[in-house]
C-alpha cells in the first residue's frame, strides 16, 4: 500500500487540477446554460468521485471499487468538456458525453467486491462501454451543433458532413440501446440485492439504491428524448439524475464511517467482555457478537501434535476452499494460537476480523491452553482405558495359559502319582514307569511356569539389567539380530517398557516380516531412552491394526513417551520408541 500511495495522491492532485482548469472554461462558455450550476456539479461530483475513490483505493488496494470511482470522476470531467468553449474540448466532451454513465454502471455492478461476478454482468458492462464510446461515432460525424438548435455552440471538429436526419437516427438508435442497457442494469441491481444476505445488505443498500434510481431516471430521460418531449422537461429530468449520481461517493463514505463505528463498538464491547475471565463458550459467543456471525466456531492450535482441536480438546479440521466456511488464523507474539472459523462474508471487513483477533488473542491463548489440557486428558483417558483393557486381556490370557498348561499337567501328575503309589507293591515296574512319566511331566510344567513368569516380569531384567535382557531376547530370536545397547542405569518402569518394545518388535519380525536380519539399538539421548528395532523384511505393518503395537504405544505413552512405526511396504519395518528418563 505504501508503494501505491504516492501515485494515488498524484492522481488526486490531477483530479483537483482538472476541476480547477475546467472551472474558468465552464464559466466563460457563453453558449452553455446554467454555468454556475455546472461548476458546482463538477466539484461536487467529479472531485467527489476522484477523492473518495482514492481513499477507497488506498484502503483496499486489491479491491477495484476505488479505481472505478476515480475513473468515474475522470470520465465525468471529460463529459463536462462539452460545456466549454474550445472546439476540440467541446467535441471530445460531446463524443464522450455518456462515458461516466458507462463507468458508473461498471462500478455499480461490481460493488462491493470490485469484481464482475457473472458472465451476464461482464457482457452488460462490455455492451455499455461499446455504446458510450464507439456507439457515439455515427452520431458525432453527422452532428452539426449550429443546425441542431445550438447556434452559439463551438464547432464539432469531428464533423464529416452535417446531416440532421442521420444525426437524429443515430441518436434514436443510441437512446433505444441505452434504455435497454439501463433497464437491464436496473434489473441486475435488484437481482443482486435480493440475492444478498442481511450482512451484505447493510453495506450495499445505499449505493444500490442510488444506482437503481440513476438507471431509472436516465432511462426516463432517454424515453422522453425519443418521444420528443419539450427541452425544459428533459433538462429537469437530467438535473434530477445528478442527485443520485452525485450522492454515490458520499453514500459510500458514509457506509465506511458507519462500518468503522460499528467495528469500534463491536471491538469495544469485546474488549469489555474480555475484561473478566470467560468460559470457552462465552468467549465464542463474545467473538460471534463482535463479528456478527452466530455460526462462528473456534479451533485451537496444538503445536505439539500439530493439529486444531475444539474447546473440548477434540480434533477438528479447518474448512477448505469451497466448503462455504472460512478460517482466520490468530497469532500471539508470532505464534499461532487459534483459528476463527466463520462465514466467508465476515471477510468483507478484514480489518474487523484482524481487530477482533488481536483483541481476543490473549483470551484465545488461555482457551488454547485449556483445550490443550483437555486434549491431553482425553488422550490419557483413552490410553488408560486401552491399558486397562490390555491388562485385563493379559490376565485372561495368563489364566487360560495356567489352566491349560501347568495346572493340567499337575492334575495329571496327581492322578499318576496316586496310581504309582497304588502299584508300588503289586507291580513295582509299572510304578517305576509311571514315576518316570511323572518326572517328565514335572519338567514340562516347570518350563511352562517359567515362561509365564517371564511374561509377567522378565527375571533377566531384574537380575542382569536391560542390556543383558535385550541380548537374551536377540539370541532367542529365530534370525540373526545385531544388538547395540549403551544405556546404563534407568528407572525400572522405563527399563521394562524398553524391554517389551524390543520383545514385541522382535516377535513381530519373526512372525510377519520375512526378514533376513534385524537390528536392535538401545541408547540414551537428551534425557530420553531411545529404542529402535529395524528389519530388512517386507514392511507393511500397521500400528492402527493389531493390538500388539498399539498396546506397546500405550505402554510407552503412559510414561510420556512416543512410539513410531515406519513400515512402508518393501522397505522393512523400523519401530522407534522414545521414553523420557531424567
Amino acid at each position: 500500500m505504501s508503494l501505491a500511495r504516492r501515485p494515488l495522491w498524484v492522481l488526486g492532485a490531477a483530479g483537483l487540477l482538472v476541476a480547477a482548469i475546467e472551472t474558468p472554461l465552464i464559466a466563460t462558455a457563453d453558449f452553455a446554460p446554467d454555468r454556475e450550476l455546472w461548476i458546482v456539479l463538477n466539484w461536487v461530483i467529479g472531485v467527489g468521485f476522484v477523492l473518495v475513490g482514492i481513499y477507497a483505493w488506498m484502503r483496499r488496494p486489491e479491491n477495484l471499487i476505488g479505481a472505478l470511482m476515480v475513473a468515474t470522476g475522470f470520465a465525468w470531467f471529460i463529459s463536462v468538456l462539452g460545456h466549454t468553449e474550445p472546439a476540440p474540448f467541446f467535441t471530445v466532451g460531446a463524443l464522450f458525453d455518456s462515458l461516466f454513465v458507462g463507468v458508473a454502471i461498471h462500478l455499480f455492478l461490481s460493488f462491493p467486491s470490485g469484481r464482475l461476478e457473472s458472465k451476464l454482468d461482464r457482457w452488460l458492462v462490455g455492451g455499455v462501454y461499446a455504446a458510450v464510446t464507439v456507439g457515439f461515432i455515427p452520431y458525432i460525424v453527422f452532428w452539426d451543433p449550429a443546425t441542431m438548435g445550438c447556434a452559439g455552440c463551438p464547432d464539432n471538429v469531428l464533423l464529416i458532413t452535417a446531416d440532421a436526419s442521420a444525426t437524429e437516427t443515430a441518436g434514436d438508435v443510441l437512446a433505444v440501446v441505452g434504455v435497454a442497457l439501463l433497464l437491464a442494469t436496473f434489473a441486475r441491481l435488484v437481482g443482486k440485492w435480493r440475492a444478498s444476505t442481511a450482512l451484505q445488505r447493510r453495506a450495499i443498500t445505499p449505493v444500490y439504491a442510488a444506482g437503481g434510481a440513476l438507471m431509472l431516471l436516465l432511462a426516463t430521460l432517454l424515453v422522453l428524448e425519443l418521444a420528443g418531449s419539450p427541452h425544459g422537461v428533459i433538462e429537469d429530468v437530467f438535473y434530477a439524475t445528478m442527485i443520485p449520481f452525485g450522492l454515490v461517493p458520499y453514500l459510500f463514505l458514509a457506509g465506511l464511517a458507519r462500518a468503522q463505528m460499528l467495528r469500534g463498538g463491536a471491538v469495544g464491547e469485546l474488549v469489555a467482555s474480555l475484561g473478566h475471565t470467560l468460559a470457552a463458550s462465552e468467549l465464542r459467543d463474545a467473538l460471534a457478537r463482535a463479528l456478527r456471525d452466530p455460526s462462528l466456531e473456534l479451533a485451537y492450535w496444538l503445536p505439539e501434535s500439530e493439529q486444531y482441536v475444539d474447546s473440548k480438546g477434540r480434533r477438528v479440521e479447518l474448512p477448505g476452499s469451497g466448503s462455504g466456511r472460512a478460517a482466520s488464523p490468530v497469532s500471539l507474539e508470532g505464534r499461532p494460537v487459534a483459528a476463527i472459523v466463520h462465514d466467508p462474508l465476515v471477510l468483507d471487513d478484514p480489518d474487523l476480523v484482524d481487530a477482533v483477533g488481536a483483541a481476543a488473542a490473549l483470551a484465545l491463548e488461555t482457551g488454547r491452553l485449556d483445550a490443550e489440557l483437555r486434549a491431553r486428558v482425553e488422550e490419557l483417558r483413552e490410553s488408560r482405558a486401552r491399558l486397562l483393557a490390555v491388562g485385563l486381556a493379559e490376565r485372561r490370557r495368563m489364566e487360560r495359559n495356567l489352566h491349560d498348561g501347568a495346572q493340567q499337567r499337575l492334575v495329571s501328575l496327581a492322578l499318576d502319582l496316586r496310581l504309582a503309589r497304588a502299584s508300588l507293591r503289586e507291580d513295582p515296574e509299572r510304578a517305576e514307569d509311571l514315576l518316570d512319566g511323572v518326572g517328565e511331566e514335572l519338567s514340562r510344567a516347570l518350563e511352562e511356569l517359567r515362561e509365564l513368569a517371564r511374561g509377567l516380569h522378565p527375571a533377566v531384567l531384574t537380575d542382569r539389567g536391560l542390556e543383558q535382557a535385550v541380548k537374551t531376547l536377540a539370541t532367542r530370536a529365530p534370525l540373526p539380530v545385531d544388538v547395540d545397547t549403551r544405556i546404563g542405569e534407568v528407572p525400572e518402569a522405563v527399563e521394562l517398557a524398553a524391554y517389551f518394545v524390543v520383545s514385541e518388535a522382535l516377535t513381530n519380525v519373526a512372525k510377519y516380516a520375512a526378514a533376513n536380519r534385524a537390528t536392535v539399538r538401545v541408547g540414551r539421548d537428551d534425557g530420553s531412552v531411545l529404542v529402535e528395532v529395524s528389519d530388512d523384511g517386507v514392511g507393511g505393518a500397521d500400528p492402527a491394526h493389531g493390538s500388539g503395537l498399539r498396546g506397546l504405544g500405550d505402554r510407552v505413552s503412559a510414561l510420556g513417551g512416543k512410539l513410531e512405526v515406519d513400515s512402508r511396504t518393501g522397505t522393512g519395518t523400523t519401530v522407534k520408541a522414545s521414553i523420557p528418563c531424567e
Partner: protein
Amino acid sequence: MVDNRFAMPTVLIVDDHPSFRASARRLLEEEGYEVVGEAADGTDALRAARELAPDIILLDVRLPDLDGFAVSRRITGPGCAGNLTPDVILISSREVDEWGGAATEVGARGFIPKAKLSRRTMEELLT
C-alpha cells in the same frame, strides 16, 4: 446308581486336555471301570453319550465349545439318552467351593476336583 456286581461300570471321559484324559483313563481302568470313550468338546460329548450310552460321564466344566453345565443339562434332560440317563459327574481343576451347588442344578450328580478323582470319590457321589 451303578451296580458293579455283574459288570464293570462304563465311563465316558469328556475333557479337552489329552494328558488328563490319559491319566484319568489309566486310573479308572486300574480301579475297575471300563472307559468306553473319550470326547474333547461338548458336541463330541453329546454324540458319544448318545452312541455309547455309558453308565457314568466324567464331564469337564470348561470345554472349548459348550460349557460342561450346558452339556450336562442336555444329557440329563428329556430325550437325549432315552430311559437310560447316565450319571453325570462334573470335573474341574478348580476346587469344589468355586462352583458352589451349580452341579446339581444342571442335572449332574455332583462335582469332583480333577486331582481328587478316584473310585472312592465317585462312589461317594453316586451312592
